[in-house]
């Protein structure tokens, strides 16, 4: 799918909350129904907000908010109602998003929420609650519920995508752009056969910079745009193949904080002046990357490399979940970074990449 097609879906989803609600429609129909209905005269409210008005750039710090706000706000009325015979709980959306994003109304119950964002199995149901505001608003908590939707399809894909989200360690530095604009905080409520429930907080913000969390496990993966698409269509969107050029891809994978390239990758895309995808013959590169001494990433390097210095982005794909991105910037210290780990020198890696790029 081309960029414009991606963007159209996102743009449409972004305007979702401007639509009128069923309550207004019911009121109008009350007047219009009957054997000889009359046309309802309606006054245009005139509150349509052009999105461009939100384009002002403001200094908004969103990157390090996860730990303080999480579960720190006042607790809502119970968002879980236990069903009867089936023992599958029914979830309902909290009336407001009580804390600063990411916030969840309850910790995982009956399922493991410590080792992954969501369990590695398909949920029985998925409810998406939307809370729309602005990242420039004075109040970053207490946003009112703006919409809710039960997902009717793609739940296996949802599990596959969310279960592999990369872990964000408390205090891990993040540099974010500071674009001001509309922000939608989502709560995804998942129920499982046997009675488990888990809430996941995910945010679609102009900077793609707010963490996701279930209350016990936080992730820096970018899932907000995908949740917006799911909210718009009612089904979790299908996974897209990795691309060297597509912005806003969900990149980063569980396990990349312990290995530069976690085990199990099935293809490698080398983003160089000409992109090349390999489905075999790149294990030497994986072994070489994983054997380098590594430390937690600061997500920065210095000094700025020369324009002519080699730069590569390596995208390792997996049968399920997001890919791992390893950036190599020769001449910038440290030279290798996967967003969770860094290694100093790419001198042993560059010849292997060159060899992989050489036509056979």
């Amino acid at each position: 799918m081309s960029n414009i097609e991606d963007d159209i879906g996102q743009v449409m989803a972004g305007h979702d909350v401007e639509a009128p609600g069923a309550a207004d429609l019911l009121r109008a129909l009350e007047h219009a129904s009957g054997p000889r209905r009359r046309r309802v005269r309606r006054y245009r409210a005139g509150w349509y907000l052009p999105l461009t008005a939100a384009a002002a750039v403001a200094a908004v710090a969103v990157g390090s908010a996860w730990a303080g706000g999480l579960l720190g706000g006042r607790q809502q009325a119970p968002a879980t109602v236990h069903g009867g015979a089936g023992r599958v709980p029914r979830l309902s959306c909290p009336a407001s998003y009580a804390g600063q994003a990411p916030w969840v109304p309850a910790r995982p119950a009956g399922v493991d929420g410590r080792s992954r964002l969501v369990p590695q199995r398909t949920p029985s149901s998925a409810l998406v609650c939307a809370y729309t505001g602005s990242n420039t608003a004075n109040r970053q908590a207490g946003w009112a519920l703006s919409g809710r939707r039960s997902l009717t399809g793609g739940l296996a894909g949802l599990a596959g995508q969310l279960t592999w989200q990369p872990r964000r360690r408390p205090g891990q530095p993040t540099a974010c752009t500071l674009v001001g604009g509309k922000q939608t905080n989502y709560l995804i409520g998942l129920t499982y056969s046997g009675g488990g429930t888990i809430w996941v907080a995910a945010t679609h913000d102009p900077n793609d910079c707010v963490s996701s969390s279930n209350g016990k496990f936080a992730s820096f993966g970018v899932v907000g745009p995908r949740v917006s698409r799911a909210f718009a269509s009612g089904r979790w969107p299908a996974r897209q193949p990795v691309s060297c050029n597509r912005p806003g891809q969900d990149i980063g994978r569980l396990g990349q904080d312990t290995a530069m390239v976690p085990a199990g990758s099935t293809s490698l895309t080398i983003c160089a002046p000409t992109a090349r995808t390999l489905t075999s013959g790149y294990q030497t590169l994986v072994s070489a990357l994983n054997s380098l001494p590594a430390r937690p990433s600061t997500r920065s390097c210095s000094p700025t490399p020369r324009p002519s210095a080699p730069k590569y982005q390596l995208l390792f794909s997996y049968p399920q979940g997001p890919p791992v991105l390893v950036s190599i910037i020769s001449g910038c210290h440290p030279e290798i970074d996967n967003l969770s780990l860094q290694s100093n020198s790419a001198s042993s890696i560059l010849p292997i990449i060159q060899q992989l790029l050489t036509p056979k």
Partner: protein
Amino acid sequence: MELDDVLTELVAHSGDRLLRVGYQLTHDRAAAQDLVQEALLRVYGSVRRRGRAPEDWYAYLRRAVINEYVRTRRLRSSTEVVTDMVPERPAAGCQEDRIADRAQLWAALGALSSRQRAVLVLRYYEGLADREIAALLGCREASVRSLASRGLAVMRQLAVPVGIAEEDRT
């Protein structure tokens, strides 16, 4: 007069979703509400007369909304003013332009013909396959592809979306 329980149930069950589709088509709250209201009443009257309920109420109502939209747009099109002014394009590659670009894309959607817009809404908002869209619009799959392709071409001309490059994300 009290609303029939069935109609109330339909609105409660599918109203929000239909209104969102209506808003994607019309870009106007009042028009979206009119559209869905008309479609609901048409379907309601038709089902009452026939005495048979459809299997998938939402799909049935969505078809009615789309048909109503295309029908009313066609009636209204003689009053619309066509302009040859293309919105100014943003400079590519600037992160701060992203939101403005999205607004431009939204505006560009509004410039499409009713059938082009219906196809794009069904494809990218409702997530339907071209085959399903063709069945819904009562045309051939090739026509759907052609409408989508022409609509996208117009969008590309009117709005050049610029996203945040991956390396700029962190």
